């Protein structure tokens, strides 16, 4: 497995493949839009203009307008911030929780490991989306509850990834040496384990951004996530459903933004994963 120092130095090789470079480009555009988008948009995402409802794409409104006359381009750009912020929050909570639980389970072993893995299995027994749907329905539809639900549903995935890695690292000489010398557990985790778990964790996180964004949008599409007038991409597609027959642009552009963002993160994560796994290089 690649150690963390080599991972950073050899990143240049990663982007020689055109697909990985494309992924990086798309991710950069998405992040840029999320961070700076609201400074650059021509109109307000929530201001209505009923005189210009459902107008097709034109020079005034590049993506057209929706059923309340709001500019779709501005709403799509605002939606980038909502989706990416939400996804990062969910993933950070899940990854940190998963890392802690995975480390504890992997390091301590024994009955602690068994109990933690059974609890993890209980959550993993549910199809992810179904459980998220149930949790949000129970708590009440809102974007905040969607974030909570997806964090609850998602952390078990990271426990597995981290635990497997910790179990294999536990047998390495440098870890055993550190334990012999008397390094305290916390320092062991932060200084020795974390840097070697980080590459695979980052890869998994990058791959999961797309999935989480799609889950948020799917829940919003069902009416469980972001509530109007929030310009969340899935909610916009739900609104567009009633008008799609005459106003294709209403559904097309939010969905396109969703697809391109996810493609970008998935290409990047896939490239990272291919790069880290030497067995795939024949």
């Amino acid at each position: 497995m690649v150690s963390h120092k080599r991972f950073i130095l050899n990143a240049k090789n990663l982007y020689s493949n055109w697909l990985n470079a494309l992924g990086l480009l798309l991710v950069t555009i998405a992040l840029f839009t999320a961070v700076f988008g609201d400074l650059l948009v021509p109109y307000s995402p929530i201001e209505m203009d009923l005189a210009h409802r459902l107008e097709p794409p034109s020079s005034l409104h590049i993506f057209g307008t929706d059923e309340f006359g709001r500019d779709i381009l501005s709403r799509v750009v605002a939606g980038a911030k909502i989706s990416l912020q939400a996804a990062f929050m969910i993933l950070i909570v899940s990854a940190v929780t998963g890392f802690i639980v995975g480390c504890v389970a992997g390091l301590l072993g024994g009955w602690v490991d068994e109990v933690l893995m059974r609890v993890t299995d209980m959550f993993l027994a549910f199809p992810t989306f179904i459980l998220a749907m149930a949790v949000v329905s129970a708590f009440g539809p809102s974007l905040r509850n969607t974030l909570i639900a997806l964090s609850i549903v998602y952390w078990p995935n990271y426990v597995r990834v981290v635990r497997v890695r910790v179990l294999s690292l536990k047998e390495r000489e440098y870890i055993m040496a550190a334990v012999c010398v008397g390094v305290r557990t916390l320092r062991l985790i932060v200084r020795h384990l974390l840097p070697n778990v980080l590459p695979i964790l980052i890869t998994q996180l990058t791959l999961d951004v797309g999935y989480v964004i799609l889950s948020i949008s799917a829940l919003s599409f069902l009416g469980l996530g972001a509530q109007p007038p929030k310009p969340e991409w899935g909610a916009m597609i739900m609104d567009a459903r009633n008008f799609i027959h005459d106003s294709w642009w209403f559904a097309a552009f939010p969905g396109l933004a969703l697809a391109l963002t996810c493609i970008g993160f998935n290409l990047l994560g896939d490239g990272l994963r291919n790069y880290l796994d030497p067995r795939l290089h024949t």
Partner: protein
Amino acid sequence: MGHHLARRFLMMILVLFGISIITFSLSRVIPADPAILIAGPRAGAEGLAKVRQQYGLDLPLWQQYSRYISGLLRLEFGQSFSSRRPVIEDIVEFLPATVELASFALGIAVISGISLGIISAIQQGGVFDDLSRLFAITGVSVPAFWIALLAQLLLYQHLGWLPFGGRISEGGTMPPAITGMLTVDSLLAGQLDTFWDSLRHLLLPALVLALEPLAILTRMTRTSMLEVMNETYIRTAHAKGLRERTVVVHHTLKNALPPIVTTIGLLIGYMMGGSILVESVFAWPGIGRYSAWAIVSADYNAIMGITLILAVIYLFTNLIVDLVCIQIDPRIRY
């Protein structure tokens, strides 16, 4: 083997209990008062008290839970607030349609995905490999509900090739219900018109639902094949002078199968979530559309019942998949 099965079985009981605890907790977390939901908004204090006593809502939590469990074992999931029928009846009515849709979608995904994955592995590094990687990534990145809407717009509204939704055209004759799947039943009954009609209705939803599983299976097959292709016994097979096809199918693919089969088990979980979205768009009368409707009408009994049933199905499916893996790969022994 027997010892392993027994341990596995015990684990499953534990997990099943865990699932029921989670769904029970969720149903008690809801912001609305269940008594009001059951009795209706106009029931007086007396009516509410009666409902609370009847449904055991005034009992301590652990007693409520044991009532819940004994109800589940008798397949009582409560009554749907909107349809006013037992939830289990609703589920039994709508499940066959989803099984039909999911089976078709899975069939499409498995056959195409594995084929594409094999070709990508053989042609590693080539243009086909890069293109299939892009296709696979796109498949898991585009939202199913969006593709469904666009496909409907293109293929129904603009081209008129395929129907808008539903399982069968209006005025079509329903075949006698044997499996509950219209395509199979109409074939068995010899009603070829109905078969063709139901197939036309099935095609678009199945294709849209199959997209993500197809993409995942392509990548999984490619990865697994590549891992096996590096093994020394494959080089031996080539050195022996065996035909390429024999090496690929008989030696490489067979050994690459276990992770692929495991993935198929996980994909069934995806199908459950995906079916909610796809069935909503295509008005397919299955569990998915029932779930979407239950969500919109805040029918908590239905939602929790569906969640529980789907989790149990998912659990058993993955158990079967693991057993199949043990059968096909003698190296996996516990």
